[in-house]
């Protein structure tokens, strides 16, 4: 497959995941609203927001990093997605997954966060920096169980290659990691709660304390870009989880189904629990899920 072709299909898949991710976001808001007894925004509200924001004409900037922050953010989102194979066995929906393995993906997640943090930092608003400090702190914590579960997978499958991990799970749902290595999956799902930053781990965008969080100073097309990324990034993460733990997907329908339920898990938890303080959430991640993860690693390393 020529590079141009590959790029083309990568964009197609990107478009799909963006739309799907944004839709999921919309659904989440709706669900939260219903749980809280409100009517809630329409499901397509994220799309409206993006268009509206991009259309705004007044814009100010605090400097070059401020300007580049959203770019870093979305590049991180897209990049992460680009290194994940989307559909198993599909030559078109494999993106650039050949250029690296799961380690690359895990690290590329940081790319956007770091850039965003820098941009937010230059904004000069203390809320941004506070939120970033909380977010990074929490991130270090939830990465530990996540890494442990990935390591457990490596011990299990002997590969870092996502495609190979998916391949190993083919042949009936009983071969999914969910069933062959349930501890690792539990661990990973708990850490996903942190990754998605819904309650109880919503310390970054804690509305009562620091309205909006890192994007405090962002507006107009910057904000639009960030909102777009929220869709892409959510999609990318979901696809990654699906690949690693839930047998991957061979077509888009299964992909949508699986990712929807994976997402809904964190949403349901989020709707049911109050928020942790930062230190509590760090402690939480470093205790139960970490212990689970260690057990799962030990189970497969002997």
């Amino acid at each position, binding site marked *: 497959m020529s590079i141009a072709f590959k790029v083309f299909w990568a964009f197609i898949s990107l478009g799909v995941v963006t739309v799907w991710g944004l839709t999921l976001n919309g659904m989440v808001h709706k669900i939260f609203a219903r749980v809280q007894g409100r009517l809630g925004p329409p499901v397509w509200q994220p799309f409206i927001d993006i268009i509206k924001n*991009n259309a705004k004409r007044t*814009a*100010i*900037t*605090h*400097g070059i*990093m401020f300007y*580049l922050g*959203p*770019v*870093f953010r979305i*590049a991180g989102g*897209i*990049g992460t997605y*680009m*290194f994940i194979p989307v559909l198993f066995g599909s030559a078109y929906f494999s993106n650039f997954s*050949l*250029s690296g*393995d799961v*380690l*690359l993906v895990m*690290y*590329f997640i*940081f790319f956007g966060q*770091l850039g965003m*943090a820098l941009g937010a*930092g*230059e*904004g*000069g*608003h*203390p*809320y941004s*920096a*506070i939120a*970033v*400090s909380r977010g*990074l*702190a929490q*991130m*270090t914590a939830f*990465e*530990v169980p996540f890494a442990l579960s990935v*390591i*457990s997978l*490596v011990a299990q499958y*002997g590969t*870092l*290659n996502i495609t*190979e991990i998916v391949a190993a799970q083919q042949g009936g749902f009983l071969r999914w990691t969910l069933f062959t290595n349930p501890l690792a999956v539990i661990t990973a799902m708990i850490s996903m709660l942190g990754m998605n930053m819904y309650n109880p781990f919503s310390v970054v965008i804690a509305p009562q304390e620091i309205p909006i969080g890192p994007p405090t*100073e962002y507006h107009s*097309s910057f904000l639009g*870009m960030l909102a777009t990324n929220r869709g892409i990034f959510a999609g990318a993460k979901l696809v990654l989880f699906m690949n690693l733990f839930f047998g991957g997907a061979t077509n888009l329908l299964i992909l949508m189904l699986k990712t929807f339920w994976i997402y809904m898990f964190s949403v349901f938890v989020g709707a049911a629990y109050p928020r942790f303080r*930062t*230190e509590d959430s*760090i*402690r939480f991640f470093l205790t139960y899920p970490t212990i689970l993860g*260690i057990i799962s690693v*030990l189970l497969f*390393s002997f």
Partner: protein
Amino acid sequence: MVNPMLLLAMFLITAFLIALLDKLHRKISIYTIYAVLLIASGMGFWQLNTLLYNPNLSVVVFSAGFSAPLSISLQFGVVEAVLVALLNLFGFLGASYLYRRFLQSGAQAIALYLLVLLGANGLVLTRDIFNSFVFLEILSIATYAIIAVDQNKNSLVAGIKYMLAGGISSTLFLIGIVLAYRYTGTLNIDTWLSLSPIKTPGYTVALFLMAIGVFIELKPFPANGWALDLYQSADKGVASLISSVNTAAILFLYYKLMPLFTPALLEILTGAGLISFVFGNLIALRQKNASRLLGYSSTAQTGLLVFSLGALSLLGLPQGMVLRIALGLFITNLFAKSGLFWLCGVTKRNNLQDWSVLRSDSGLLIIFGIFAVALMGFPPFPSFFAKWQIIQIFGASQAWMWMAGLLIGSLLEVVYLMRWLGFAAKGESQSTLEKPFSKLFPLMVSALGLASVSYYLTLMYPQIGTNSIYPIMAFILFGLIDILPVKLKGVLAIAALSLWGWFVLLPPLPLMGQLFALILVGGSIVQIFAFMRYQGAAEGFFPSLTMLIFALGNIVLASTKLQFFLAWELMTLAAYLLILKGKKARVAALLFIVFSSFGAYLMLAGFSMMPNTVEGYLIILQANFMAIDWLPALLLGVAFLIKMGAVGVHYWLPAAYSEADDETSSILSSVLSKAGVFGLLMVLILISRFVSSSSISMMALGWIGVFTAFFGALMAVFQEDAKKLLAYSSMSQLGYIVVGLSLMTHLGWVSALYLAVNHLFFKGLIFMAMAAVFLRTGTRNMYEMGGLIKKMPIAFISVLMGIIAVSGVPPLSGFGSKWFIYTSLLEQGRYLQTALVFFSSAIAFLYLYRLIHTVFLGQAKPNQKDVKEAPIWLIIPQGIFIMAIMAISVFPNIITKPLSLAVGDYIAKPEWLNWDGYNLVLNSPTLHGNWNGNLVMYVTMGVFIIPLIWLLLVNARTQKVKQFNIVFAAERPYKPWTTHFAYNMFAHYEKALGFLVKPRVTAFYKGVAEGFHSLSATLARIYTGNGQTYMLHIFLYTIFLYLLLGVK
């Protein structure tokens, strides 16, 4: 040959006639004794010269026309000649120091002084035991009397204590002589030696009394209270005389008697010498009074000499070798100790902290430094070689206790001398010194003499090799041209080092060596530019700096253990001097040198247990064919880990990195730590045949590395001081390297080396950029900065590149290092270590974000509104490093392939590791993975540029607002800079995980230091100051040794 009788006659005639000469004019008598001493010294040299060309010359002279057992014989052999030459030379120097005293005191003092020297010369020359007693008495009584040149209460009391102690010991000696005469029927040592051994208890008693009489005169701990008081209270010229001439002569007497002793007796006295060395140094630890400290040190050094002579003889070494080693120690002590006493007299400061007067006087400071450094046994001074040889011998003979004692004592010595040096170099003082020429002259001669003697002794060690000379030469040459402008010196240094590196260093090295040579020397050369930012001459940097870099090269180039250790010590010394240049670096430098010395001594011990290497064939090449046992490997490993700052022994690291000057910190962190990596790698190569990744030892090493990485990162998070943050960050990164090395696999080593190279680039880059920031803002506290991105964009870009590389975020080279580490760890099934490494590198984000945010982003401080970009000299190295990082990020193969080849010399590249174009493919049975740095770079650029273009399209005309304008959030703070979120940025993290980084290590080392200090204080309580108690000590000590001897 010179007739030694003439020597004695000359002294006597002069002494007797001096009163008459003095009647003519005071100066005549003074100059007469100068002449006499110089002639005597010349006679020594002449005799030495004669003997060198005519070694079979008879060197024994009899008196009264009868031969030996009947009459008294004098021997004027090589050793005697050396001693006569040196002692009289020091007599002369001491006399010139006492010039003013002599002018005041008159003929009697001059005659007494001369008689001290007569006693010393006689004691050295005579071969008759009773004659020794007579000369010993002449020496002692003359010394007692000359103490009175300073007739204050303290020196008089000390004199009485000294006389009583001396009286007791000479009585014991005399009784011993006569008792022994009863058994041997002779008083001549040579005749005595030819007798068959006598085995009755009575004879043993006689020997014991004789030995103890001399031994107590050597002031062993704890029977030496009198001597300490003397050193403290006497005129410094006299104290110097006692510690050098007097002690040397008695020591030689001890040496002459040694062959007579039974092995049991010699063993006990040797042990007592070692005790004296260790405890003398231990008590010196808490001394605040300079002369008393020197007293303790003198005790210790004498103990060391007694110990070395005894131990080496007990081990059955040839006397020539014993003497050569002892001479190395002796000469250093002679020059340095008397020099230090004279210096005490020049500064007239008793409290160590007041020695900061030397600060304003660089000449004296250099002299002081030479003495202190020589005394501690740093190269190139003779004591270094002596200690090296002793330890090698102990290692070969498996004399572990002796070795341990020697090393512990030496370490204690380093602590107090370096603390003292620190006070002198870094204290606060404005006062000036009165420096009469008569007092400066002996100091200068002594320092120069020490240096030149070192040169000649260095020549005696052919295995040193010519390369080892370069660092010292560089130090001297750059010391001489230190007044030139710094830019010129920088160019010269860069040129010299580059030429040397290219033509001398690189050609003989294998790939691995070249790699380290590039890291160590190349990395340093780049950073020399930063030193050129100073105005004027910026004295003091370049000698140490060039010495450091040459020594670093020599470490790689070493082919013998001695060369390696020599280069290592020179490197340590140079680094110490550089650190000491920092404004508040006194404590930090002390910590550095103490920990480094601890490491160096472990290394010394380790080397002693390692087989000898072939000269001229690089160690790193030989390592492949050699093997060492686990114990040397452990010792060497710990030594190198200390240099790398592994967790537990990292205590020195943050202090040294943060308090040194910024350029120095950069070199320390980015380059110097790699010397430790090199050493550790060497050790691992040496043991590669016995261990594998799954060995317990390597697992343990891996955990050490992981915990270093983890705790380093965690501690970095909580720092307010940017340099401390970077220091801990370095520690953390070195932890990854240790983990990689511990894997003992091809991939593991490649990952470690990749990280080493990378760390050089990004840490050098960040340090340079931060150096610029510190330079411009004048603070290192991050919360006192903010918003500097607009003022210092280049520094910001450097730091940005640096932190992306550190954090391992793709696409920059840092990700490569992370990828290598994880895959190599996972490949070996070290899953839990992988997890902790992952956690550490996640924590890295916290401190890196803190670094860049609080310094460059957020709200600018109003007092920093005029901050400018850094000078070009700091930007040049940054540029070089950025280019390097970009190059290996886009084309990772230009570094990974050579690394793999280099490692391949030691551990073959496995089949399953492939370089597929730019794609790195791993297909091991246990792990599959791949990484294509090139493609990732392009993809990343693509996904970055497309949104950027989009943003530029829709949002091209943004309105630039002032930094303080954060109105969009509907707020306008009254004082915006107070909203800069910087101080205690990760308070929540500290709440959650702070318990892990409670300063346990600090508490531990504080506890150790405290323990040593209170031990030292407790031991010092035995010196009650009461002369009678001191006598009691002597008796009890004698009895104790006697009981140890256990005569039946």
